[in-house]
């Protein structure tokens, strides 16, 4: 018998039968089924013990409470805290995406870096902290030895009054340089107008939650102004229980931003005319006697005409407004209807708790001082100051002052020199710092007056609305040091990078979020161990001071940064505030009834431990005690006519002529108006026929436009008529588009005197005709594939004017032209 075909077939048949009776086929199928479900390269997140670490978000000055969910040592999710007064539960999209900033290795510096490539290329080698600190210390001490400490400058992006900013300023002072410059913030505008109108130096505090009528002049309530978690929560309260709207929200803005489109009333007035509109409303209020005469008569100055000591007659605010800002006159300026202005004014004045709030989108750009004053004056007219649901006047946070700095010769000599940015000079008497002036000075002068510049928590190359001027300046500065944890545009220009921790790896304080109505101090704590060889810049400054020389070191007698935090927090202990929060009675509600706060600690150490645990200290009470002695102006009154301005102008005029003084200060009016809030048409010498349109950058809550980069998550929320591929879009009114023969989706060049950018065109009825709106937050040239080269950055073509009085930059008035590609 041989293996014939038939036998073979039999063998196979037998085999088949046998296999069928063995587990092989079934088991194999089952295993294959599982095998097809295993994709080796799909991550398999490790599990472990789940914990939640409470901290404070530090990505903006808002200071929202966050609770970070961890698995063993990994942070896996960020949520809002419900046991935190600022933001009961929610946070903003940026804060929600924070982990991608922590864990994305390619956008972070793994340690100290020294530049090897050309400036701007971002080619570095890692060095040790020792080397890095030595290089920097030597450089500074050499300058001190040479007797030119003022050649050291610093650009500081930390929040005003925060301990980090105090440290940076202190470093400069101790070194002997006056050139401590901050990046812009709306807080500067608030501070100046508060000083001029009220003489107060506390922060602007709006009791939004208790207001029943909010008249916002360009304030991006839903774009990320103040503490987004707090403002959007307020928005929820205002619109609570469908059907009856609790508070009425009016937005004055030329573009249908989220705030404008979700508001109950959108007032689309021409950009830059806020002062005119506000004074127009004042006109109506005064004319109809709707103002609070008790406040005006007893607690204000300069309302009626008055005679000064030298017997000169002066025009009062009332007659100025009645004379120059009638609804018809204002209508011409703003492009609104007179009737609407009247109705708006009446609604505002008749509301129980109306607030007029001033802003420019988010809070990380400057505003106009006269505008801000004009708007704030509406609160004064209706007497809604220091009342529930009004504007509250608070003292600055009661933080202790750090000990005086020992002064040596170099110190005196250096600080004797004028600031390079001329802030506080006769020409800019009220400005604290003017980064745009610094930039121009460096660019203009043959040799940069600044030799070494330290940049903290800032990315000015990207964020400054200066048409790329700051980058040009950095090219000229011999030695640039960045303390940024991120591979941002500015650090790419640096010779030395001393990376800071990210906000989830360090302890740092948040001092009084913009606009919050009660004294608040937040403290973030390390949520995870530092991932890389980075250091808290506070500690770095202390270490650096040691290496410069003994005098500088003597200014920093602390172990570490926490020591400084504690030293300042002593004042909080004296003032006594709450360090825990229960969400049953919100902070803003307590304020209303002014019920006292009983704090639960006896010693400073105990308080500090509790602050570190809870991350907060706040005083939910406010006296609302009338208007007596509230104002700290020269004559202790709310000044419709600012004597400080008068003094400043006179002093400057004394040095030159009255005319030139006003001219240099950027003021076009003369006489008493100068000292009163008034409308200044933005001056511009641009050829209108070459640049017939205007470009305004706009900010979005769901895209970071400050020094913090956007977590990639945010790009999921960007619409494809804002960014498609690498093209970002300019919003233009259909009418304007037809005028220029353009249609949806066209690629255009947007040309301004400062430069040009390419963008797509997105037709929108939310855009005011004649204006081109470009989103801020795109167009990065640094970071990684998620951000680099996506869209354009409008700052590159901004051709900024100067704001009268303050000298801050007027970034919302760039003249442009559209050219189809």
């Amino acid at each position, binding site marked *: 018998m041989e293996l014939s075909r038939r036998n073979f077939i039999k063998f196979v048949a037998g085999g088949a039968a046998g296999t069928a009776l063995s587990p092989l086929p079934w088991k194999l199928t089952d295993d294959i089924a599982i095998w097809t*479900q295993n*994709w080796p390269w*799909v*991550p*398999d*997140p*490790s599990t472990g013990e789940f914990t939640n670490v409470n901290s404070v978000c530090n990505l903006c000055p808002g200071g929202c409470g966050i609770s970070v969910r961890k*698995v063993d040592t990994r*942070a*896996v*999710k960020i*949520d*809002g805290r419900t046991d935190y007064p600022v933001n009961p*539960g*929610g946070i*903003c*999209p940026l804060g*929600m995406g924070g982990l991608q900033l922590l*864990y*994305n*290795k390619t956008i972070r510096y793994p340690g100290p870096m020294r530049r090897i490539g050309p400036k701007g290329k971002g080619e570095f080698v890692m060095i040790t902290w020792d080397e890095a600190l030595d290089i920097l210390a030597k450089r500074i001490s050499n300058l001190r030895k040479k007797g030119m400490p003022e050649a050291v400058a610093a650009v500081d992006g930390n929040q005003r009054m925060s301990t980090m900013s105090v440290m940076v300023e202190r470093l400069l002072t101790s070194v002997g340089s006056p050139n401590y410059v901050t990046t812009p913030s709306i807080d500067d505008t608030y501070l100046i107008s508060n000083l001029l109108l009220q003489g107060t130096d506390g922060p602007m505090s709006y009791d939004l939650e208790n207001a029943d009528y909010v008249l916002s002049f360009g304030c991006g309530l*839903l774009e990320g102004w103040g503490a*987004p978690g707090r403002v*959007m929560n307020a*928005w929820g309260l205002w*619109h609570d229980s*469908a*059907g009856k*709207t609790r508070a009425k929200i009016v937005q004055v803005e*030329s573009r*249908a931003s989220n705030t404008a*489109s*979700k508001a*109950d009333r*959108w*007032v*689309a007035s*021409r950009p830059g005319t806020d002062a005119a509109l506000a004074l127009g409303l004042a006109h109506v209020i005064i004319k109809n006697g709707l103002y609070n005469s008790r406040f005006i008569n007893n607690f204000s100055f300069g309302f009626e005409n008055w005679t000064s000591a030298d017997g000169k007659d002066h025009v009062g605010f009332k007659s100025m407004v009645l004379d120059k800002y009638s609804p018809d006159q204002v209508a011409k300026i*703003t*492009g*609104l*209807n007179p009737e*609407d202005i009247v109705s708006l004014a009446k609604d505002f004045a008749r509301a129980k708790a109306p607030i007029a709030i001033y802003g420019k989108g988010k809070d990380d750009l400057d505003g106009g001082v006269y505008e801000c004053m004009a708007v704030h004056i509406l609160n004064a007219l209706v007497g809604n100051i220091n009342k529930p649901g009004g504007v509250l006047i608070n003292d600055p946070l009661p933080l202790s002052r750090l000990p005086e700095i020992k002064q040596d010769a170099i110190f005196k000599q250096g600080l004797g020199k004028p600031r390079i940015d001329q802030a506080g000079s006769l020409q800019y008497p009220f400005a604290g710092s003017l980064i745009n002036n610094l930039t121009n000075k460096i660019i203009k002068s043959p040799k940069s007056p600044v030799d070494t510049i330290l940049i903290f928590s800032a990315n000015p190359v990207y964020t400054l609305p200066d048409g790329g001027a700051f980058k040009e300046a950095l090219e000229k500065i011999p030695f640039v040091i960045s303390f940024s944890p991120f591979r941002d545009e500015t650090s790419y220009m640096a010779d030395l990078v001393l990376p800071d921790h990210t906000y989830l790896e360090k302890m740092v304080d948040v001092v009084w979020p913009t606009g919050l109505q009660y004294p608040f101090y937040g403290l973030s704590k390390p949520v995870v161990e530092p991932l890389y060889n980075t250091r808290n810049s506070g500690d770095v400054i202390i270490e650096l001071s040691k290496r410069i020389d003994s005098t500088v070191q003597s200014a920093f007698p602390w172990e570490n940064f926490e020591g400084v935090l504690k030293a300042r927090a002593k004042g909080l202990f004296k003032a006594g505030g709450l360090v825990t929060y229960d969400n049953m009675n919100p902070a803003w509600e307590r304020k209303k009834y002014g019920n006292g706060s009983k704090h639960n600690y006896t010693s400073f150490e105990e308080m500090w431990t509790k602050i570190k645990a809870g991350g907060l200290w706040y005083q939910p009470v406010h006296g609302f005690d009338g208007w007596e002695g509230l104002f700290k102006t020269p004559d202790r009154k709310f000044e419709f006519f600012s004597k400080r301005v008068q003094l400043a102008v006179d002093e400057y005029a004394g040095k030159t002529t009255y005319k030139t003084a006003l001219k240099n200060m950027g003021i076009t009016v003369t006489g008493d108006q100068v000292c009163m809030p008034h409308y200044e048409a933005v001056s511009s010498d641009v050829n209108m026929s070459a640049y017939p349109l205007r470009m305004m950058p706009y900010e979005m*809550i*769901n895209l970071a436009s400050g020094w913090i980069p956007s977590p*990639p998550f*945010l*790009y*999921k*929320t*960007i619409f*494809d008529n804002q*960014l498609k*591929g690498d093209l970002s879009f300019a919003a233009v009114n259909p009418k304007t588009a037809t005028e220029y023969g353009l249609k949806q989706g066209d690629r255009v060049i947007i040309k301004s005197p400062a430069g040009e950018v390419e963008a797509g065109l997105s037709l929108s*009825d*939310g*855009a*005011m*005709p004649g204006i081109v709106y470009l989103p801020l937050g795109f167009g990065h040239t640094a970071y990684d*594939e998620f951000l680099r080269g996506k869209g354009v950055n409008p700052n590159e073509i901004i051709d900024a004017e100067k704001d009268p009085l303050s000298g801050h930059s007027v970034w919302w008035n760039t003249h442009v032209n559209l050219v189809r590609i």
Partner: protein
Amino acid sequence: MKKGHDQGKHKYGMVIDLDKCTGCGTCMVACAAENNVSVRPDESDKQRSIAWMLLYKIDNGKEFPDTETSYFPRPCMHCDDNPPCVSVCPATATKIDYNTGIVSQIYTRCIGCRYCIAACPYHARTFNWWDGYFPKGKGLDRYLSPEVSPRMRGVVEKCSFCHHRLMRAKDQAYAEGRKELKEGEYITACAEACPAQAISFGDLNNPGHKVSRLSKSPFAFRILEKLGTNPKVYYLSTKDWVRKMADNYLPGEFKPVSKASASADKKTTLQGG
């Protein structure tokens, strides 16, 4: 096979107040972060990018300055009774749990035929056109949560009402020796994150829960109700034009919620420009 949902104990649902919604997009980010949703270098191809919770921007079609915009946050509707996507799946990869009302999607079971995507009119289902983006050495996989299994290329995924949070809440309750959950112990990531408290989540079967009250408001409505998909996601808006956007209406078919809304709906904008 049809087992009425009402026999189920719970019926988890969502109510989104569009008047409160500010369009900030936190819900989208919270959702993506919570559920390990893939994020790619280019997220601008909206027809292919993955979003369990998606924000739609709508406007009233009027000209400047009378134009008015609003937003529709759109999770999976978790249609009740007979979801259009469930019966079509050939491999039983998606089912509705009548005990919670939640429509599940099992990624390791899905074969990627995309029939469910075609059947869903809400575009609530998205396909993994690519593998997740986790380049070596970038370290982005370090924030992934172990509570939601990351997806492989070629499968369909969608909002799960953060089902793992239900499990989390139950474990917590069990640890405390409780069998039943209290209101608010189980809420989705988007509901928790919303800074304007526009999203409420809870048990529609439980009259005590906020959602079941809100879902009966005269201003409550659902998207494409007429198709009979019976969604468990409700919306609130006092604006007639917004409510009208939610469904297709024959001429004269739409009934404005007149009196109450009349006042609130009137939004005035002043001419400018």
